[in-house]
């Protein structure tokens, strides 16, 4: 049973930020509500004021600029991202990820900003965006700031958003030449959340050595994390089976998963190793062709 709340519909960013600064911790923002409504119904979240930004259309956009990279407004739906020809062309890993994010009904109504703010470690977009060196522009009545996704998640279902702040935009830099990325989650049903997931992004030097690599693990710790030891093992190296094995083992050592009804801690670690190897290899192959 959802506890009663006062409903405030914002029609602009300015109005939403005004409501937020007025009601602060007594308020929650709803956009698509595909995560929040479940929590409200289960009584895990109760709020005095619900600020609805679903109709803030000024935050629904996808822009690309060769210098600035990709900009996606917070109220852009998952389905819009999935279907965007621009994203299919420039960030295929993002549209591939969206295709298997929950199912069509959720993607039609749910939004990228809401998904990232929900801070579920098993969410799909965060590891991919983190691997792509993405960041989040947030705003409050006082102004705007940009937070790297590396620093955005502070704990289970917690973010670096401060009182009165909300997500305005997701930013992803333009990919360097010879860069490839890959993402995969392990699950029983395709539309489920991942039991674990791994995203990798590899940039090669002109030849065949790794210049830069980012490996991000989903649902393998209280937040989405970067496997930095595993990334370091790739730098300056040539890809072979021995190296992949080392990278996988490093990621296994870095993750900190919990056991639940879907998988034990050991099984999750085992999966992290396998998926890290596969995704690094896949990203590397994609980088060669880029």
């Amino acid at each position, binding site marked *: 049973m959802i506890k009663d709340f006062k409903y405030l519909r914002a029609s602009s960013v300015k109005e939403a930020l005004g409501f937020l600064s007025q009601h602060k911790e007594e308020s929650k923002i709803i956009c698509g509500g595909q995560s929040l409504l479940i929590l409200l119904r289960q009584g895990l979240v109760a709020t005095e004021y619900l600020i609805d930004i679903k109709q803030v259309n000024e935050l629904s956009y996808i822009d690309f600029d060769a210098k600035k990279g990709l900009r996606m407004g917070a109220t852009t739906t998952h389905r819009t991202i999935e279907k965007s020809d621009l994203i299919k062309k420039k960030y295929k890993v993002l549209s591939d990820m969206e295709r298997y994010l929950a199912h069509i009904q959720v993607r039609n*109504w749910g939004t990228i900003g809401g998904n990232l703010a929900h801070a579920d470690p098993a969410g799909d977009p965060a590891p991919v965006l983190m691997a792509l060196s993405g960041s989040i522009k947030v705003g409050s009545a006082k102004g705007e700031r940009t937070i790297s996704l590396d620093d955005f998640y502070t704990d289970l279902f917690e973010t670096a958003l401060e009182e009165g702040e909300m997500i305005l935009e997701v930013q992803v830099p333009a990919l360097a030449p010879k860069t490839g990325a890959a993402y995969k989650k392990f699950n029983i049903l395709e539309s489920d959340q991942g039991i674990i997931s791994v995203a990798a992004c590899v940039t090669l030097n002109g030849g065949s050595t790794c210049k830069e690599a980012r490996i991000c693990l989903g649902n393998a710790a209280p937040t989405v994390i970067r496997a930095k030891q595993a990334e370091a093992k790739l730098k300056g190296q040539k890809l072979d089976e021995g190296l992949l094995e080392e990278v996988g083992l490093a990621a296994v050592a870095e993750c900190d998963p919990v056991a639940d009804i879907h998988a034990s801690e050991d099984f999750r670690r085992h999966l992290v190793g396998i998926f890290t190897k596969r995704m690094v290899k896949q990203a590397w192959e994609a980088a060669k062709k880029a």
Partner: protein
Amino acid sequence: MERHLLRITVNGQEHELYINPKTLLVEVIRDHLGLTGTKRGCETVSCGACTMIVEGMSVKGCSVLAMQVDGLKVTTVEGLEDHGKLHPIQKAFIDHGSYQCGFCTSGMLMSSKALLDENPKATIKEIREGLDGNLCRCTGYNSIVRAVDAVCKGQYREDEA
């Protein structure tokens, strides 16, 4: 208790009602408007029994606040037939026996409708992906996919409006 004015068009008919803002779309459709074809199943965005179409997009009515569809057009399973004439997808479901208990049927029909509107020539794989958000616990999936496939292959063309 706070009440808000909601204006929605359901199956072509305009409605104005005053609701508690926590009311879900499926509650407005079933309890306020009495259109009980849409079912409440899991209520956790999993089963798809409450699927309806808002402005051409399939959504799950259990996970959308009714206030968020203020001013929008909603189609429920009751809106598929046109003056007693069944929609091709409804005919195909009957012909292929695409249900056992029937609880998932209205959601399956609405997801199928959304899929066909977007992609009238869907392949079997696309049909299966399009129905990914709907569960049938009688496991009647194959007959459902056959029905949608029959419409995609043009076997119900004379029934189309």
